[in-house]
């Protein structure tokens, strides 16, 4: 299907897909932010290697079922970036929260 389209049409398609991807990343980031708040409230660590493994296994399985050109390693590299950013969102929120707590204390 895709290979029959012209260069212009393909690029148009990529632009549309990117929009969907960014919107989905945004939704994912909001979830990660909410998770960060819950971790904060429950005194859990930001970095949960066990959970990251589950996420990684899940996305690899989904990818494998599609049979496209993205290899398992490629998905791993991409998702490492996604999880790096999720951790960062949670760290920034936790720092903000702690700073606020200190302010109200003093």
């Amino acid at each position: 299907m895709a290979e029959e389209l012209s260069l212009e049409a393909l690029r148009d398609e990529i632009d549309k897909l990117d929009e969907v991807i960014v919107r989905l990343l945004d939704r994912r980031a909001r979830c990660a932010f909410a998770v960060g708040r819950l971790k904060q409230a429950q005194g859990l660590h930001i970095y949960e290697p066990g959970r990251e493994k589950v996420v990684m296994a899940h996305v690899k399985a989904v990818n494998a079922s599609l049979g496209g050109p993205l290899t398992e390693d490629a998905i791993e590299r991409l998702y490492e970036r996604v999880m790096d950013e999720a951790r960062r969102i949670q760290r920034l929120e936790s720092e903000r929260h702690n700073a606020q707590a200190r302010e109200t204390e003093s």
Partner: protein
Amino acid sequence: MVVVMKERVSGEQVEHVIAHLVELGMDVHRSTGASRVVLGVVGSGKVDPRLIELMDGVHEVLRISEPYKLASRTFKQEDTVFNVGDVRIGGDEVIVMAGPCSAENEAQVNATAAAVKRAGAKVLRGGAFKPRSSPYSFQGLGEEGLRMLRGAASTHDLKLVTEVMDISQIEVIDRYADIFQVGARNMQNFTLLRELGRTRKTVLLKRGISATIEEWLLSAEYVLAGGNTQVILCERGIRTFETSTRNTLDISAIPIVKQLSHLPVFVDPSHGTGRRDKVAPMARAAVAAGADGLLIEVHCDPDKAMSDGAQSLFPGQFDRLMAELRIIAPAIGRSICLEPVARRGWAR
């Protein structure tokens, strides 16, 4: 910094390192390669790379940013230029500081000051408190020496640089000198550096005899951190295996430091070589390599000098050297002694 994990590490080892770094407030970017995992670590948290390197599964830790901040080019892009009275340090003009190793008596100090002024020096150097390798060597005249040096400097319209060895000398030297010199042996005397950081007088910081450039810049950081921004770095030779000179003058330190730091860099070819006949070639090389100034020992009668006579130039040799430097400096867009004193009627 970048943490490179060993080949074939377990997932737990990687997780342990990441967990530790996250706990320290860092952002970790994990990259899984075919045989190795590399962690990119960024953030403002305080991390000791050596401690990370000791963790299980870590192959090596590479630091990316310099440990010194205020002395770094990253912190301040443009060269630092400042005035000591009417003498501009770090500008286009190469500034020469010259004089005897030690102040010995009125006549010697005056005759040497007159000679270096005539040749084009802008600052008189001379020691009153001498850090000698042996406690039995001549230790300097103390405040009496400072009085002589100040008198000669003022008479001949020169600024004065002299060495401060100890916190207790800061007050008295401050009264006489225009520039504090910190000697090679004191480069890591952190209490002294911190105290000089509180003053608002120029500090000429010599490189320690076995100091790396990074250690040298960290010492400058101590002075800068106290709010004293007028720091001159002075290369004076480092200890190597070579014995034909006293120390090996590290000419390459000039362009390296100029790249890493915005501070002016001077060179002392006298202590670096320890021999009179090597002083002029090294001084020429230093100017050609981009030094902002020189610190040279000149004695009106070197053979009778009470310290370091062998490395002191005769006034005539110093004269000749200055004439050569006036030819070299323009080749790299610098000048030296803009106002040759000869024009004012001091011609030989």
